[in-house]
């Protein structure tokens, strides 16, 4: 059944589709670990995607696009980095504001810079190269997953590993975890909590910038309004499902990606797309229920956590 239903192509394209979500989820995990609740990934991805297209269009190189995307998204993330720390703003409000700003600003700039609305595509936008390594292509599964992927997809998985190692094996990671668990305790140990948070949020911004670049330059060489299309929110859910652990968050992304690929497949079986579209979200909801089932008895704790 796997052979016919889930084909190498499908897995390959699912991996490609997961990449922006994975990068955003890593970003959210990092922020969550230092105690900044980031739900602005939707907007960050959008800024990254837009900046990548702008960069690629004006520099004539995909790398230029990626660099511009990272710089722009890091710049955009300053709002959260300083707003939620130095200025002690509420991160939920800031993030919702950032998502709106990203949506409005990219649409506005799209019209004013390129005179188009909706979609901007131009042969001048150089997309990311797909890496073809002959040796890998022939290996089953690995080949299916990693052949003809962009450097950003490779990077996303390498970064997942790096983030995990840094988080759990290095002094830096220990400090980050401490900052997130109890900022005042970290502070008494001489850690500059604000600085750790600001830098982490900005690094997370760079990650989502990469994700945005993959969205607009990796998959297609196009920017269209609101093209993040809920991927940032899925990343927020992945962070929550993964309980701020990068590997679990990555697993949640994979789950979503597979459910999505599966739902596309179901369309081909005559199910209406309006219903198959819902499948990944229902799978995610079920995963949330399952992951929370065990904690049921601790009623007062959830109330506390919620407060």
């Amino acid at each position, binding site marked *: 059944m796997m052979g016919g239903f889930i084909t190498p192509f499908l897995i390959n394209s699912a991996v490609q589709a997961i990449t922006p979500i994975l990068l955003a989820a890593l970003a959210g995990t990092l922020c969550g670990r230092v105690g900044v609740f980031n739900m602005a990934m939707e907007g960050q991805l959008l800024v990254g995607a837009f900046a990548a297209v702008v960069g690629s269009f004006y520099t004539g190189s995909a790398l230029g696009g990626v660099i511009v995307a990272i710089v722009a998204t890091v710049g955009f993330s300053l709002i959260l980095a300083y707003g939620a720390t130095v200025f002690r*703003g509420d991160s939920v409000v800031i993030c919702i504001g950032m998502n709106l700003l990203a949506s409005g600003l990219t649409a506005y700039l799209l019209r004013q810079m390129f005179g188009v609305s909706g979609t901007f595509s131009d042969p001048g936008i150089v997309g990311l190269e797909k890496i073809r390594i002959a040796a890998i292509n022939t290996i089953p599964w690995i080949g299916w997953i990693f052949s003809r992927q962009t450097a950003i997809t490779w990077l996303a998985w390498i970064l997942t590993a790096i983030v995990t190692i840094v988080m759990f094996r290095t002094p830096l990671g220990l400090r980050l975890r401490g900052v997130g668990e109890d900022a005042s305790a970290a502070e008494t140990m001489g850690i500059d909590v604000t600085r750790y948070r600001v830098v982490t949020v900005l690094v997370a911004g760079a990650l989502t910038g990469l994700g945005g670049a993959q969205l607009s330059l990796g998959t297609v060489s196009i920017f269209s309004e609101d093209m993040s299309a809920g991927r940032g929110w899925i990343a927020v859910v992945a962070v929550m499902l993964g309980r701020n652990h990068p590997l679990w968050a990555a697993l949640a992304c994979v789950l979503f990606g597979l459910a999505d690929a599966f739902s596309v497949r179901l369309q081909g079986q005559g199910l209406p797309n309006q219903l198959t579209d819902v499948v990944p979200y229902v799978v995610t909801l079920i995963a949330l229920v399952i992951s929370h089932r065990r904690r049921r008895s*601790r009623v007062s704790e959830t109330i506390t956590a919620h407060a």
Partner: protein
Amino acid sequence: MSGSARSSFRLPRIPAVPLAVLVGVVLGALLVLVSGGDPVAAYREILIGALAPANWPNTLNWAVPLVGMTLVAAIPLRGGMVNLGGDGQLVVGGLVAALVPLYLPGPGPLLTIVAIIAAMIAAGLYASIAAWGETRFGIPMLISSLLLSYPAIGVASYIVGFPLRDTTTGLAQTVMIPDAARLPTISGPLNVGLILMMIVAIAVVFYDRRTVGGYELRMRGLNAKFAGYGGVSLGPQTVRIMFASGAIAGLVGAIIVLGSQYRFQDGALLSPGYTWSGLMAALLAGGEPLGATGAGLFFAALQTGGFAMQRETAIPRVLTMVLQAIIILFLAIRHGVGRRAS
């Protein structure tokens, strides 16, 4: 260190909201200038488009759903809860409001009333699912309410795209609601929905200020643990509040469907983005219903003016979205809007 430095350079005390609006206007003007537009013309058109007496009906017509969705967000927010599922609840309400007069027998005006009540109950129940998930499993409502929107939207889209589609058109939409079951028009685009929404807004403000439930909700917003310890049953309260919030979303859906679109059209309830604008407005006022209503009216005027600006100048109306975002960000960062007691 930096704290004291900042406070010594503090600007003279200007009330926060006007200051934020000013900042938004100035930054917006810069954006327009940089992109080669004329900010003065832009703002003039926004003002005329929103506030010239001839345009009041348009502004009010836009304000009814927007203020409604503001209240949808504000009610839970008052108790420290966030309902991100307004879109789904709106769609559930709109769909039910369209199906009742189409598929139930009965005299028109009665159907209208039944449709509105059914829409409110359906959307309220749908919103309560997220509340139940939180009290029963501890699934954060913030995320479950958002996720639950997708199935609602998808299934509604399927229903009007297949089994209950108006087969005389090529779109996913129901057939037109009979004239008798539509909301009576007041004048121009305005219909009785305006009055319904005014009543709801007044009721919410009254609830917040004068009732025991309002007091308990406020206390919960300030410290949920305190409220629970003091004898407020948080679980049932969560469900109640989410039901009320969802019910208002359902009412908004019903008003749009029964009052102006006269059918449920796939996507038409969501494309104006009332949910997010309403959430912004509610956040702006920290969930306080009167302030939220004011903020909702302000955003409605701004957006209506934005359409006029886009018609008259070459400046895209998304500029008003940028203005809203700047205002809310400024308030959140500089004045701690939404900051919760820790």
